[in-house]
């Protein structure tokens, strides 16, 4: 169990949250190619180390936010700009 620093509720157990995934910009549907859509849909960086990702506080404030986590150690740190892009 890791502790997730919810920017609205403070630190809570990760069981209260849903992991949304790596933060990635969504391509513009008007201009994107099918290949870009497939990449957006399926490909992940999956780094071994620090990554920026989105979480959803499902059993709390029910808000989305971003944080930084090391996938090597599960160490977590809050992001300065914490709102979901």
């Amino acid at each position, binding site marked *: 169990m890791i502790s997730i620093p919810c920017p609205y509720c403070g630190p809570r157990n*990760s069981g209260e949250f849903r992991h949304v995934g790596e933060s990635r910009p969504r391509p513009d549907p008007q201009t994107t190619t099918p290949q870009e859509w497939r990449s957006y849909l*399926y*490909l*992940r960086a999956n780094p071994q180390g620090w990554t920026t990702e989105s979480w959803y506080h499902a059993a709390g404030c029910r808000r989305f936010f971003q944080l930084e986590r090391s*996938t*090597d150690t*599960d160490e977590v740190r809050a992001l300065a700009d914490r709102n979901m892009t």
Partner: protein
Amino acid sequence: MGSNGQRQAVNGQRTGARSRLPAKYSALALVKRGATHSDWPLSWRTHELRSRYDVVIVGAGVHGLATAYYLAANHGVTNVAVLDKSYLGGGGSGRNTAILRANYLTPEGVRFYDRSVKLYENLASTLNFNVMFSQRGHLTLAHNDSSLRTMRWRAEVNKLQGVDSEVIGPDEVKRLAPYLDVSTHTRYPILGALYHPPGGIIRHDAVNWGYARAADALGVEIHQNTQVVGIDVAAGDPGKVTGVRTTRGAVSAPVVINCTAGWATTIADLAGVALPITTHPLQAAVTEPVKVFLRTVVVSGSLHVYVSQTDRGELVFGASVDPYPSYSTRGSLEFIEEVASHVLELMPAIAKLRVLRQWAGLCDMTPDYSPIMGLTPVDGFLVDVGWGTYGFKAGPVSGEAMAELVATGKTPELIEPFTLSRFDTGDLVGEKGAAAVGH
């Protein structure tokens, strides 16, 4: 396995005045060597890393070792190096719950895993290594109407592919596994099960060691503690692999195969190949050993748990992958709490059993819960990855198919559905319903 490895390599790193080649194992040899206590041979040798190989395989787990073995045994390709950043069989191949089965959902999946079970059935004599495959039967429990419907579906698909599977009722479940609570007043009543008699458990370390020893005897070089830190790709369209750089020096090779499971994307990134894979830990636990009371393997999708009893008497528990990607192999309290409560739903009688230990392995999850095998956009860089929670049971057939691909240059029909390009064409092989539990 990185710094989290907790188990020691049993052999392979020792040197000294021992037999240079593995001897044949037999009861007679055991008695002879036991009586004289002399010259227990090494199972595989250590080598200096050479500067050139025909094939470099990254990852000395069951997939990498099986690929190397079948390259040498079936196709006579012996100038092969298997590289691992740690000790062989230290990743998922030594951390899984050792369950083998072929009762999948899609015809592609069933054919593929059935071939694997067939290879496992003869593996002990093929490798001259006792892998302790015990085909004790496999029960997938259904707790509601919709899962019973899926079991029926799977049973029919299995039968069409010639795989022994049938749906059975609670009475038959009780007969096969008397300690299961089949009463109807539970929160998750057992309405029936998919019974798969050829399924069972095996000793996973023996499979790794057996493949390593047999491949070594045929001339394959196994290099432990040799981490790949770079992959050289000649520019062009498509680019072409020319070799790898390791912590022990550079190696040139026209073919590089990525068999690194949880670390698949870190290796593919070195070759500039993007894979639709995320790495999740999958935890497991064992209890103290008790007398044998559970013969079959029991799986419950609704309760996110699978249980089997080893030959030593320990109950082995597994569950679903951790809910966020990670390369950490630390166990968590929430896992053991959850798995204990779910197992007690199934078998209230074991409430006093104590858990001995828990551990985690890394799973390379794909969007459709099927593996990614074969060619990539980079010429000569092959993948055998995306094995998620079901890689161990596919080790032999994957090795056989990947070896055929390397030797003939043609993708075998059996693994065509699992090509990386399926994510571009949209031909996904959806195995979410049957690949594991709780996804």
